């Protein structure tokens, strides 16, 4: 059987660690979180999905019942650790299948706070690497604190060296090695002094390197993800770590005070070289096919990061895309979006696009306050106009519900420009005006004649608002699959 393994790293269960001495009426950092996985198979043939759960610190997996996959099935599953007495426990999971599968991880506040906080979303990994990078890591900085998870994908014990670099410094603030059993994981909250020693106000990036325990000549594959949570608010978002850098990074979302709520994107750009300085520049594009601004060339030191706010270089009220260009050393990038009604999201800049991109978590609620809605941004990262981009909407049964022609010969999408789709615009809604809820699950396949990158925004409006928060939102990246 040709088993294709996807890796979904889960920050499951109780990740709340109290911030001693700080009184908070609401704190996403102090919140207890739980999680689910949404998955989708782009396969035209049926298959089987198998799930192994690794309790944190354990190399012994718990094998869960397998799930039958109908062709193009989209679904959601909960997987988590639990003790005999009912206590939720943390861990990681590996999903395996005999057909291609992509998955997205969704984390939300545990009850009774589930609807009082946003959701964190990131994509599962289909493979790991001995080196991983996390472009931003905070401790009580900008009102947020980070938490990072690293999973050892090998079947042997690994030594995982983690270096935390503050902005402007080429010497790590903390540099330590963790030992992690095969298949298992370690979770590092920035404020957990038993795991890492960082000063309050830390703002930096992370470099992860792993090898077999006791043998530095044998690399160990790992994956990493991170989340940032508001210390005194409800904002929370997650993103994947990145295994390698590039001299060009594509950002399908670029915003400056957009959509009437001052939605603005911020880019954290990390030089992943530990020896060379990168010269970095960012180019900004609107949705009409025009380059509308650029940054000056910025030197970014080894292991260091540079933060970019497009509003410093373009006009307000713009929604578009961006390209990050680097010379001298490769870079990786994270995009964050915030606004003035409480939303906070994150996504990963992508070094390459694909002609087939899948997003497994697509929803549309008839009313924006009752459930979540998703909006899709598609950016052409090819060298020529895209003249044939189709978005196929599949429901939880694997039934094709709609096809949206996003670019055609008469309405092409130029290079570096983005265009949008959603279930409503595509005509995928059911009679009740919903998509993805009954049957549970919904996904898209984006098929293009030029490589594209895809960012999905999931959001839910709040009625009544929770104080100043009127909307929760989060972004995640579409996954490139082999056509």
């Amino acid at each position, binding site marked *: 059987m040709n088993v294709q393994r996807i890796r979904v790293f889960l920050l499951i*269960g*109780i990740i709340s660690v109290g911030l001693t001495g700080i009184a908070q009426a609401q704190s996403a950092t102090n919140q*207890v979180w*739980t999680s*689910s996985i*949404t998955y989708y198979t782009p396969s035209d043939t049926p298959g089987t999905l198998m*799930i192994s*759960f690794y*309790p944190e610190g*354990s190399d*012994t*997996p*718990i*094998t*869960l*019942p397998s*799930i*039958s996959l109908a062709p193009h*099935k989209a*679904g*959601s*599953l*909960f*997987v*988590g*650790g*639990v*003790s*005999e*007495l*009912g*206590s*939720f*426990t943390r*861990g990681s999971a590996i999903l395996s299948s005999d057909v291609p599968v992509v998955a997205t991880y*969704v984390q*939300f506040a*545990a*009850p*009774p706070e*589930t*609807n*009082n906080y946003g959701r964190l979303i990131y994509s599962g990994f289909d493979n790991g690497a001995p080196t991983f990078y996390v472009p931003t890591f905070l401790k009580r900085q900008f009102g947020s604190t980070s938490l990072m998870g690293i999973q050892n994908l090998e079947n042997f014990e690994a030594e995982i060296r983690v270096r935390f670099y503050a902005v402007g410094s080429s010497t790590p603030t903390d540099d330590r090695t963790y030992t992690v059993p095969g298949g298992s994981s370690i979770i590092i909250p920035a404020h957990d002094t038993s795991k890492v020693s960082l000063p309050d106000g830390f703002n930096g990036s992370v470099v992860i390197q792993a090898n077999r325990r006791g043998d530095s000549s044998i690399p160990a594959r790992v994956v990493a993800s991170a989340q940032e949570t508001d210390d005194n608010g409800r904002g929370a978002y997650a993103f994947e770590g990145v295994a390698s850098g590039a001299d060009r990074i594509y950002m399908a979302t670029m915003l400056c005070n957009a959509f009437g709520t001052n939605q603005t994107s911020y880019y954290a750009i990390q030089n992943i070289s530990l020896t060379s300085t990168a010269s970095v520049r960012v180019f900004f594009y609107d949705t009409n096919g025009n380059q509308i601004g650029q940054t000056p060339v910025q030197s970014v030191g080894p292991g260091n990061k540079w933060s970019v706010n497009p509003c410093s270089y373009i006009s307000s009220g713009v929604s578009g895309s961006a390209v990050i260009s680097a010379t001298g050393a490769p870079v990786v990038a994270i995009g964050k979006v915030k606004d003035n009604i409480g939303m906070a999201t994150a996504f990963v800049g992508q070094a390459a696009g694909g002609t087939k991109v899948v997003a497994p*978590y697509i*929803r549309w609620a008839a*009313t924006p306050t*009752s*459930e*979540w809605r998703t909006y899709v941004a598609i950016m052409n990262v090819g060298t020529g106009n895209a003249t044939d981009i189709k978005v196929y909407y599949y429901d*939880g049964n694997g039934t094709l519900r709609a096809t949206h022609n996003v670019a055609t010969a008469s309405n092409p999408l130029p290079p570096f420009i983005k265009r949008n789709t959603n279930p409503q615009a595509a005509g995928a809604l059911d009679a009740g005006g919903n998509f*993805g*809820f*009954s*049957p*549970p699950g919904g996904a898209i396949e984006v098929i293009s004649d030029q490589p594209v990158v895809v960012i999905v925004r999931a959001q839910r409006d709040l009625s009544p608002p929770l104080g100043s928060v009127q909307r929760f939102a989060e972004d995640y990246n579409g996954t490139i699959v082999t056509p």
Partner: protein
Amino acid sequence: MGPLSPLKLLPNPSCRSARWGVYLAPHRWFGMLLILVLIGLGGNACRHLGSWARSPQSLPPTPKPFTQFSKQGGIRGQILIPSGTSARLFVYLARITWGPEKGQGAYLLDPSISPWAEIGPDGRFDLPMVEPGAYIIFVGSSPEGAIPLQVAPGRAYIVRIQEGEILDIGTWPSPVR
């Protein structure tokens, strides 16, 4: 947190009707025969284990085995839905698989393999055909937004469903606000 009313195996007479529901649906002729058997057994056939008098923090009682007419068990109960809730709500059962290391388990909820039922307007739900085992009960308008019933913060309410028995978990406040 915790139930508002006792957990119990189905007391008479609802236990009987629930069992008929289980057995009559697939095979009516067998169901009629079963009714006669149940009448013969009388009320003793459907034991009531009594009220769950312990605090909500304590674990629910473990039902004793019942005469096995089926390999299946069942569960029912009531979730008090907050007024003004417009979305349809569902109950999902996440099966627990226990690992080789003592006390460690993992749960899985996927609607394609997990038992689920829509909660009625009165908050009641009924899942008559459930594989025996340990489960966590989730409530939500969709699987990815479902929330587990808990006996304490961070501690799931685990039910153990056994062959031939229908468990009534009583009335619980909705974890969905």
